[in-house]
């Protein structure tokens, strides 16, 4: 059988690095070089822009120090508690409002308009109610994450296919079974989206509260580094914190299967 040129022609070798990757590397290198240049130029006060060597050393020092992990554990515990309390209460309120149009019209505007207010301003009240310990930080985290979870859950409830609910009714599912077997699986994506948003704002709320008044946690370490003007350490902590925050956000989205949604 005669072979056609189209079948025998080999595909051109793919370049080792795509242009996008090369551009990304170029941008990162340009940023690092620009930073180092600025650091050595003396244009800014010493240590405002420390050299990468100093930041790297501070980063290694930070990650090798047990004290850092203790404080990271404190903050992680506060955020987890805030997310658990705020997430569960937000979910419950969202399900109630999403399943009842009358209640939604009565109460949802309050959630909708209170949601975007700056939550850190409630910190003095939280200190009065829950003390200066972890309680006030958790409370601020709860307050921050409640609103996005509740609003996402309410919106998710309204998007559930009515057929699914009718199927549940035809099987005589009780309230608990309907919530557990129909509502929650059907609104998985809006809930995960809400939890993602909730995690982000709970993290910010908890850490900001720690920077304002605390004696342990990552927020405390950041403000301590600021007060002794240890800039390389502060940069190192912010880098780790940003990586952890973005990583946690991406992880929640991935675990919830958000990447599988067809757009």
């Amino acid at each position: 059988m005669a072979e056609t040129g189209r079948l025998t022609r080999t595909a051109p070798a793919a370049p080792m690095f795509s242009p996008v990757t090369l551009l990304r590397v170029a941008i990162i290198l340009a940023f690092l070089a620009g930073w180092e240049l600025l650091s050595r130029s003396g244009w800014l006060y010493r240590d405002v822009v420390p050299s990468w060597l100093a930041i790297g050393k501070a980063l290694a020092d930070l990650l090798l120090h047990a004290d850092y992990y203790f404080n990271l554990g404190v903050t992680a515990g506060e955020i987890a508690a805030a997310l658990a309390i705020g997430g569960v209460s937000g979910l419950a309120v969202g399900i109630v409002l999403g399943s009842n149009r009358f209640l939604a019209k009565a109460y949802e505007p309050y959630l909708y308009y209170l949601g975007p207010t700056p939550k850190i301003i409630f910190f003095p009240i939280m200190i009065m109610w829950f003390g200066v310990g972890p309680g006030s930080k958790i409370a601020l985290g709860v307050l921050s994450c409640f609103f996005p979870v509740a609003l996402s859950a309410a919106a998710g409830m309204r998007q559930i296919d009515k057929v699914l609910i009718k199927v549940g009714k035809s099987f005589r599912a009780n309230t608990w079974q309907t919530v557990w077997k129909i509502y929650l699986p059907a609104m998985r994506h809006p809930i995960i989206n809400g939890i993602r948003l909730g995690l982000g704002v709970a993290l910010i709320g908890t850490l900001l509260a720690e920077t304002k008044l605390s004696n342990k946690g990552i927020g405390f370490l950041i403000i301590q580094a600021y007060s002794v003007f240890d800039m390389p350490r502060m940069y190192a902590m912010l880098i780790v914190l940003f990586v952890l925050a973005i990583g946690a956000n991406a992880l929640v989205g991935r675990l919830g299967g958000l990447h599988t949604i067809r757009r």
Partner: protein
Amino acid sequence: MSAAARRRSVYDWMPAALGIGTVVVFFAALEGLIQAGLINRFIVPPPSEIIGSFGRVLTEEHVVSRFFFTLGECFVAGVMITVFGVAGGVLLYRYKLLQQAVETWVAALAAAPVVLAYPLFMVIFGRSAWTIIMIGFVAALSPVVLKTLEGLSGTRKVLINVGKSFNLTGSQQFWKIMFPAALPTMFVGVRLGLIFALINIVGVEFLINYGGLGQLINDLAERYDLPGTYAAICFVILVSVVFFMFLEKAERWLRPVD
């Protein structure tokens, strides 16, 4: 009025009445519990005292000038996010390779807790309004960039083809077709950006004890003026809600039909 129409109008105002009624009952119950000594008035001041302290806070604490100070910071941050955000979005739309390389970074910046870097900004800009404005700017930039990009990328093909059929130049195509078509989506980004900016600006004012409304709350809390603190918090909530509603109305005006 027919019975059905009457039922409909009752159904329209009943939920709002229930919402307002719940708030009133909650505060009345709180007042009663505090007056009865079941809740410590040195932790939660009675709502009547909070309402009574509104006038004092407004006059003695220069709330109006503080409000305009915060509004000024929001305005500067808003102008900056609009100029740089729209320019960034246009740049990413114009250069596809750049867009593919950095779009995920811009989205990641939106998820990053930028406000936590406020001590760093204080070192760079000092304890000044610029620290507050710059945090508002950095925290609110990415939604404007992303929404501008989304708006330009979503311009309908038929509109672009109309421009081509009129032999428009690149600049004319952008200003007469692409930009007006993308404007409503861009404004969604600007609205989100302004909300982020306001949240961060008031938050940082509170944290660094400088500026307008955020500093007012910190000041009153440090003086242990509890009714005043609660009244100031209510005032900030009111300002945020009005700001949010105003932006929503502006967006609806700009996007009359979805």
